[in-house]
């Protein structure tokens, strides 16, 4: 699953993430992070046999967790399937199908937003 972790100022100096990885069997990928002494947030992807336990642990440590269902979304009305975004995706989450429709793979997407800022018809939305 992908989720935003919200860090309050009181926990930014705790080693929550490394403890999580030490104690639980989880795979953990940081997609985006913006953390300052005043708190901050981190977009993560978490999987593995103990992902649920790991999430419980994070919440117990005081991290507010907001799962996101969709990272990237294409507005089918606005999109003209030009394909400008395809080569900009660093994780090859954007592909052109056999019928030449441009598809965005939400599972692969890391939410970098490069496709969004380059879209000529502003047809791509990235979840905050």
């Amino acid at each position, binding site marked *: 699953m992908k989720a935003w972790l919200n860090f309050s100022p009181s926990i930014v100096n705790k080693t929550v993430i490394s403890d999580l990885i030490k104690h639980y069997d989880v795979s953990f990928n940081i997609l985006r992070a913006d953390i300052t002494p005043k708190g901050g947030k981190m977009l993560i992807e978490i999987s593995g046999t103990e992902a649920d336990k790991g999430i419980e642990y994070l919440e117990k440590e005081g991290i507010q967790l907001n799962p996101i269902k969709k990272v990237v979304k294409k507005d089918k009305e606005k999109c*003209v*399937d*030009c*394909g*400008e*975004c*395809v*080569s*900009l*995706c660093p994780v*090859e989450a954007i*592909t*052109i199908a056999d*019928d*030449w*429709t441009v598809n965005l793979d939400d599972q692969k997407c890391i939410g970098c937003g*490069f496709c969004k*800022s*380059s879209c*000529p*018809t*502003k047809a791509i939305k990235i979840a905050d």
Partner: protein
Amino acid sequence: MKTIEEINQKIKDGDAVVVTAREMTRIVQENGAGKAAEEVDVVTTGTFGAMCSSGAFFNFGHSDPPIKMSRTYLNGVEAYSGLAAVDAYLGATQPHRNPDIGTDYGGAHLLEDLVRGKEVELVAEAFGTDCYPRTDVHTFISLESLNQAIMVNPRNCYQNYAAATNSTEETLYTYLGTLLPQMGNVGYSSAGELSPLLNDPYFQTIGVGTRIFLCGGQGYILGEGTQHATEGERKNGVPVGSAGTLMLQGDLKKMDAKFLRGATMPKYGSTLYVGAGIPIPILNEEIAQRTGISDQDIHCNIYDYGVPRRSRPVVMETNYHDLRSGKIEINGREVQTSPLSSFKKALEVAEELKMWIEKGDFFLTNPVKNIPSQGCTVKPLEIKRPSLLVKDLKIKPIITARAEDAISGVARKMVDNNINHLPVVDHAGRLMGIVTSWDIAHAVAKDSKKLTEVMTKKVIVALEDEPVELIARRIDKHEISGVPIVNRENLVRGMITAEDISRLICSQNKEGD
């Protein structure tokens, strides 16, 4: 073998065999051109690409009292009104008058809004005459309320086009899309085997007056477009570069937003996605053969858009089969490609036109006049006052610092020479970094002693043989106040500052008076 009149009779009788250019490619490959010419009557082509040279003429009708509009804005986008009283031409790339909106809503977006039936704000100003006393207008109009809204696109349907990559270290924003650093991707634009002018590369059937599909309505070819060129290199009968173009006309009131879309190329400008399709009558075997062209046979060059000059270096030659596969190899490395023009929409255009002809709603035309297929070249614009190169500037004596110099010594050097920038060099005079008076202030504030701690190591530079305009843009883009001049060996030859450039412009303006 066949005539347009015979084909039109077949269309009327519902007997015409119509295929898209993509289908025709397979038919010719499988059955040969001779058989294809006997079986097929019409091949429909299509393209749906960003075509900046597009726009529309409007006639607003006369108000009471009447006005002779001298400045006209539609939803804040200026239309050219140096025409009769209430006529104006709106171009697709015209940005919004409010710089905060700028290219996010330009002429192209306004055209789409009109086609979608939206009401738009009309603001016009005038100086007032005896016959046109009114001096301003502020009202709302729609496509329906306009007397005429005629799309006239001076240059559409480029026969072929360059593909682009970027060898520099920074991301570039171009009309061929966003180009990643270090040749990280490739942008291309042509619809390849579906593209109209690649299916009739010598203009044997396409001419002045040819009826076409334009943005969901019926339009016409007015003639060759601007920058029409015929003398470029050809492979398999089709140009390898941009070559031929068309000037198109159509009634905006009959168009469909499905085939016309306002868009913005980030940090470049607004542009109009135009859906255009041209029917090609298969009059003989040669024409059939030409419409049989495949993506594999259509070549194009990938240019390095990292070089911002008129002649950009060719990185390599490729073809549309490879480009459309999504990945190509440049210098042994796999690179992703982006089409920029929608092949899906181009197919829809070709299919729609095919359906019109099959239903007997669209008939073919004989050209009134042929479009030139030879003798056309594109002349460059010669600047009478040639670009000044960096090396032509009066370069002040070269003053540099060494990495091991003390901060106080560097500060003194700046004061003594009345300068704010000092390139830092190694023993051989090669550029290592740059310090500014601000860096020195910073060093004092932080109590740094070493120059290497405060100098900028990643330096933006000017090469001796670059035009000064380019350096001005570079200084502006990076929000810096000066750049060291280096030669090909990275040896420092001097400094060029924003002040030098403004002084240069002042002196040039004086000369011009």
